[in-house]
């Protein structure tokens, strides 16, 4: 599973998954913290739709962490102040970079969590779609 999809599931899904994965790696490998979780900013680059040009919308607070397993460096970055999650994401990223055996089993768990996320999203959409306007044409005298 590629990083984009993986990080979507780990951040949008239950936080226990990232914790469990990171714990599993910590128990079996030496994880060196290169950069402790720390706050920083990400500048948001957006495309406007009038002339389709780019501009900076503002900044978002993030927590970032970097770890190393063997020769592989993992980066964990997430919006807000979330030190533990940033660390776990970094460990998981390093595990994938190092192509550790454990990561092959994780795909199944992530796929299952993706289904949960999808279900929650559908329920949210359902409640929003209840506010969709159904127009009725009024009688014209």
């Amino acid at each position, binding site marked *: 599973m590629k*990083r984009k999809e993986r990080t979507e599931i780990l951040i949008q899904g239950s936080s226990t998954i990232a914790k469990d994965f990171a714990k599993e790696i910590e128990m079996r490998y030496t994880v060196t913290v290169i950069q402790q979780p720390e706050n920083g900013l990400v500048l948001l680059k957006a495309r406007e739709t009038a002339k389709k040009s*780019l501009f900076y919308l503002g900044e978002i*607070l993030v927590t970032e962490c970097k770890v190393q397993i063997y020769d592989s460096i993992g980066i964990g970055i997430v919006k807000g102040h979330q030190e533990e999650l940033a660390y776990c994401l970094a460990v998981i990223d390093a595990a994938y970079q190092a192509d550790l055996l454990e990561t092959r089993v994780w795909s199944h768990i992530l796929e299952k969590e993706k289904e949960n996320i999808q279900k929650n999203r559908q329920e949210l959409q359902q409640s929003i*779609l209840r506010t969709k306007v159904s127009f009725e044409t009024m009688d014209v005298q």
Partner: protein
Amino acid sequence: MGYVAVKGGTQAIEESIKRLKYERLQKGTVLDVHTIEDGMRGLIDQVMSESSLYDQSLAAIAIKQAEGNPEEAVFLLRAYRSTLPRKHVSRIISSEDMQVERRISASFKDIPGGQILGATTDYTHRLLDWELEKETEESIQDWLHAYHAENRLTEYDQKQMSELSNLPKVLDYLRSEGLLQSCENNDLNPEDVTRKSLEFPSKRSERLQILTRGQTGAVTSLAYAVIRGYGALHPTVGELRVGQLPVYLDHPLDIGQEEDSYYIGDFQATEVEMLMPVTVEKERGKKEMEFEIGYGLCFGQNETKAIAIGILDNCLENPNTDFPSQNEEFVLYHIDSVESTGFISHLKMPHYVTFQSKLDSIRKTKEKASVGAVGGGNE
């Protein structure tokens, strides 16, 4: 009269700060920051937007510290922001990827995907709800339980479900009809007004960045002036959408690989595309009506502000010296919360020397005038 440098006031300032804390605490109520974060969505969104910093928890602390004063909260967040390292720039955020929570058009009744009201005060009666005085944890939980039960998915719902991400845009429909000029993506790197001072004529990226971090009241007032006649626009909301936008970052060593990017979370934003009818002169003096677009995008659910940004964006794309609202220097230099409130409020800081100097001048002028009057009388 000579000038004497003075110092002092340290103890008075310390006591004043203590007094400020007393004002916040005197009733013995601890205002939980989570309560602010969970229950003051409108103020949080306004403060994040004007601060140009998206984080609800930080905004809640700033609001608590500022005792609910938005200008002070924005000042606090801007100051805090300046202490943080800027670690990354996001991949390009496109509003087409918005997970829509609300989406309406005032121009077209039947828009592809439909008019979705979402959460809005637009159709409320604006009568004070006295029941809120009696609201309890229990009553909230009961209401939430009933709401979730109402929205539980059935198999039928799942089959009927339409997708709220990737909703078609009204502008694309107009472009396909030839009613709007189509344009290609312009990938020129934007300017950043927080790193480089503004110079005139400004660039579009600078204008949009200043407008989106502008003070809500200032931006709204100037846009209102445009519609009332201090401008030459007749705008309509083509499309307004509120929803969640995902943020992705490239790997530092592997730039441009979308599938290998990092997802870091979503943020809520309001986007508005305003339609302005204009008369365009074509070949042989033939005149035709076309639409121009004014664009507004800002953090949170700040709909009035986003509409106002859209109006001012179009004003500044079409400079006109007849109206201050179409003068970029007038608009862009006066809408920033920290700059405007900072300058106005600095007037209450000690100005003893400058004021004494003015006082001296006035006294001397008066003395000369009275001497002149007496002298004139003697002549």
